[in-house]
């Protein structure tokens, strides 16, 4: 479906409009702006974000977010576009990052170029590793590929304690980004400087990865994903198509690693272990593998959960897990798929009819979820708080977690909220059906 969407937009630029009264032809006529619009909005957002969120911690969170965006997009070149499920993608980012750290520490060489060039080197190292691994791992997709990726991931993660010279053992490798040649007088001492450096690379990488998906080899990656045998009978070697995607993906993963190195000035085994590989799979899937922008949403949401929510509760990983599970089970298209589900309703102009039913169901559902999470937090507090510490604060209220009343309230709220949700569900379903059946005639 994603391809279809893009096709509409992309090929529209080449289309000669025949019937300007046709809604679709109209869209095609203006499609150049339609294609560029998201990028312009994205660039503007990147620039103005620091003016909205000015604190240093906000900058750190945003940097983390943008790095995850690049990493997740590079992962989706494999999973979403190429149909290759990798369990070891973190090694390409990690090796790129470690290479960047070593360049940082090679003071003479590092002083010979400005810092913004560094991610390029990191990307090349990630690409180099992908060239080697891809030469044998892309022979097959599916289970074989997944197992090789897992094996290689474990292997390189294990190397981090063996090859101490490169990976720095348990304490990792640290460096100082400010030793680079000043970039128009800027030595990247401040977080805001790093923010704009990161933003530049995020935008550039995202644009390049998007363009990649529009090239012959990028298009054939989709074909090979869907039906490798058919692709072979169209003159393309499925293996080579996978290999090119894999190498490109390694390059952009390396860039993410380089950006990480610049931001944190330290890399450890954690950057390339299987847990990190698992996280990026989770992020990408959460956002949605079927659409190019899916991983971007996934990266933003996950980073927010990881940073903002983790300040509120120790159980953030639990909630992230539940969110992931719910996505896989109920919305396999991810958050992006959820958004795109509404496009037909918007096209027919009937999206407005969905607003009230949504409020009537989602609002109580949200209250219910909060009530359940309160129960989870209370259970956690009862089990894990120090002996004698009965006071807990939840939703700006301090109460005794060992008394019965808060439990009764939470359970009552949860039951009531879910009951209302359930009662209003049919209305939402009906509204959804009407909003989407109208499209038959028009689209």
């Amino acid at each position, binding site marked *: 479906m994603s391809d279809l969407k893009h*096709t509409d937009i992309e090929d529209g630029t080449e289309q000669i409009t025949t019937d300007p009264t046709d809604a679709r032809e109209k869209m095609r006529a203006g499609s150049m702006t339609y294609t560029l619009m998201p990028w312009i909005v994205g660039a503007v957002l990147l620039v103005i974000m620091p003016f909205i969120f000015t604190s240093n911690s906000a900058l750190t969170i945003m940097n983390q977010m943008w790095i995850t965006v690049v990493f997740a997009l590079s992962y989706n070149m494999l999973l979403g576009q190429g149909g290759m499920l990798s369990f070891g993608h973190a090694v390409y980012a990690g090796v790129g990052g470690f290479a960047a750290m070593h360049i940082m520490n090679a003071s003479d060489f590092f002083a010979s170029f400005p810092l913004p060039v560094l991610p390029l080197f990191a990307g090349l190292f990630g690409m180099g590793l992908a060239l080697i691994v891809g030469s044998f791992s892309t022979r097959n997709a599916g289970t074989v590929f997944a197992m090789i990726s897992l094996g290689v991931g474990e292997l390189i993660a294990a190397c981090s304690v063996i090859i101490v010279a490169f990976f720095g053992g348990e304490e990792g490798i640290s460096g100082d980004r400010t030793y680079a040649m000043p970039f128009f007088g800027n030595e990247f001492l401040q977080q805001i400087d790093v923010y704009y450096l990161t933003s530049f690379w995020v935008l550039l990488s995202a644009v390049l990865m998007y363009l990649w998906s529009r090239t*012959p080899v990028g298009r054939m990656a989709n074909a090979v994903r869907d039906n490798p045998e058919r692709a072979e009978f169209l003159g393309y070697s499925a293996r080579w198509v996978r290999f090119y995607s894999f190498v490109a993906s390694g390059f952009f993963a390396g860039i993410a690693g380089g950006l990480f190195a610049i931001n944190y000035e330290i890399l450890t085994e954690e950057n390339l272990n299987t847990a990190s590989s698992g996280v990026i799979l989770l992020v990408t899937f959460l956002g949605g593998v079927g659409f190019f922008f899916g991983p971007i949403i996934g990266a933003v949401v996950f980073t927010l959960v990881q940073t903002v929510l983790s300040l509120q509760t120790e159980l953030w990983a639990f909630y992230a897990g539940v969110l992931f599970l719910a996505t896989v089970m109920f919305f396999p298209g991810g958050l992006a798929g959820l958004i795109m589900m509404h496009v037909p309703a918007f096209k027919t102009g009937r999206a407005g009819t969905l607003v009230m039913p949504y409020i009537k169901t989602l609002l109580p559902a949200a209250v219910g979820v909060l009530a359940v999470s309160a129960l989870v937090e209370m259970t956690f507090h009862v089990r894990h708080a120090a002996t004698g510490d009965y006071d807990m604060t939840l939703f700006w209220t301090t109460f005794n977690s060992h008394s019965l009343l808060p439990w009764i309230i939470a359970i009552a709220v949860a039951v009531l909220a879910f009951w209302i949700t359930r009662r209003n569900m049919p209305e939402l379903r009906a509204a959804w059906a009407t909003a989407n059946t109208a499209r038959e005639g028009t689209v």
Partner: protein
Amino acid sequence: MNAMTSTDAPALDISGLRKSFGKAEIIRGIDLSIGKGERHAVIGPNGAGKSTLFNLITARFAPTSGTVKLHGKDLAGLQPFQINRMGLSRSFQITNIFPAMSVFENVRCALLWSHGYKYSFWNMVGRSRDLTEGADRILEQINLTSRRDLPAGVLSYAEQRALEIGITIAGGADVIMLDEPTAGMSHSETDYIMDLIRTVTVGKTLIMVEHDMGVVFGLADRISVLVYGEIIATGKPEEVRGDARVQEAYLGAALEAEH
């Protein structure tokens, strides 16, 4: 398409071809030569080995012994994509398209290699007028223009078969192999697809596997009858229909039904 091949070699030359799966010999020594521009149909009852023969020719399976030559060049050990680049394109008995991609994009993918785009990552396919126009032209030929932007997976069965034929011919191959293109179709759909095949394969070598002789009678220049892994007759449709062994082995029932 292929400058390197000698002009007088047959489009496809099969000699001594055998294939065993374990102890079962499915193809038991086939010799067949198909000339340039010929429309050749291979017919036979179920289980005769028609699809196996097809898969041997297109290197989906490796033969136990024997050779297959395309334009005089041995295909042994080549990969499907290499054979395709030599000018042979095939369809599949079970519909084999890219269901998640749009109809237009299915055809465009089939055009990429022959238009010289190869593995390039410096071209934007959406900006290539030759691809867009070429794909639209194919869509016109297979009457799927109105379905252009739909995902191929939602097309009707007959439309998917038409699309598959479109994909097969799109790359400009001069040898086209179709594996039971009318399998599972109604009478009118079969007529429609056969007309389509007739128009899109003009000037090309066509090798077509079919279950039912009646379907290919008007189209094929020559017909081979495959029974239990052997070709028992090859010749013009009328000759084959008159052949006593063919009637005995296979056609009797079908011909009676026809008359």
